[in-house]
């Protein structure tokens, strides 16, 4: 393993286009910034390993495919509900929006003013 010593704010370049920067060191925690092309997958190792280990367990389970557990009926509430078929897709990133394309702050013309603009805090007659 290549071992490098870096200070806060210093970086390591991997290949042509991956930059790993030490952002902050506090006690035994290090915040790391990673600049990588969007084609590069970056994972926390323990999360990736969790899935890897579960796959190993799942493959071992497949040998037990005759297990009567798998022939039990589906849970009732789930079966009664419509089944979604796909994940949500992250919207495709396009060119950054110009600042004036931000959401409109004013309501449509002719719309009544929001209730909070009412004279609620007017002094009540004594």
């Amino acid at each position: 393993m290549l071992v490098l010593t870096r200070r806060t704010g210093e970086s390591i370049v991997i290949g042509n286009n991956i930059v790993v920067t030490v952002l902050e060191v506090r006690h035994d925690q290090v915040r790391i910034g990673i600049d990588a092309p969007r084609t590069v997958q970056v994972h926390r190792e323990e999360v990736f390993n969790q899935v890897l280990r579960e796959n190993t367990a799942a493959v071992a389970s497949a040998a037990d495919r005759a297990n009567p557990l798998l022939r039990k009926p589906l849970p009732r509430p789930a079966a009664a509900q419509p089944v979604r078929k796909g994940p949500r897709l992250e919207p495709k990133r396009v060119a950054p929006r110009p600042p004036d394309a931000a959401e409109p702050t004013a309501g449509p013309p002719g719309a009544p003013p929001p209730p909070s603009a009412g004279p609620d805090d007017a002094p009540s007659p004594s």
Partner: protein
Amino acid sequence: MSGSASGTATAPEVAEDQILWFPDGIPGFPYSHRFVLVEMAPDSPFQILQSADEPDVSLIVTVPWLFFPDYDFELSELEQRELGITSEEETVVFSAVTLDGEHHRVYLNLLGPIVVNTTNRRGRQVVLVDSDLPVRAPVELG
């Protein structure tokens, strides 16, 4: 001489058009690139995702929404590009199933959904980033 092919202990022959192509394999099994989906029983919610490259590698899978109707995750733009996905309609999602026969429990892996593009038959196990979904979600079967 028999001239028969019986008795050969190779992986079952698979029709090319049934192959699902996992370019990166799946975590733990990086050399399994070709998989086929095998039905378990006509009315079973479970199927077998069988590696065509490594006969010993297979997973029981199911459609997660049958058990977790509120299951929801976002497929990153990177994953969409890797899979060539352009619409939700052409994606199918499976969860790998783990059995605990001793405790009569069945678990689904919700953290690593297996996403398949039905148009180009490319598949990938997505490891969700910054997600608190469980890798072992217990399922209550009737």
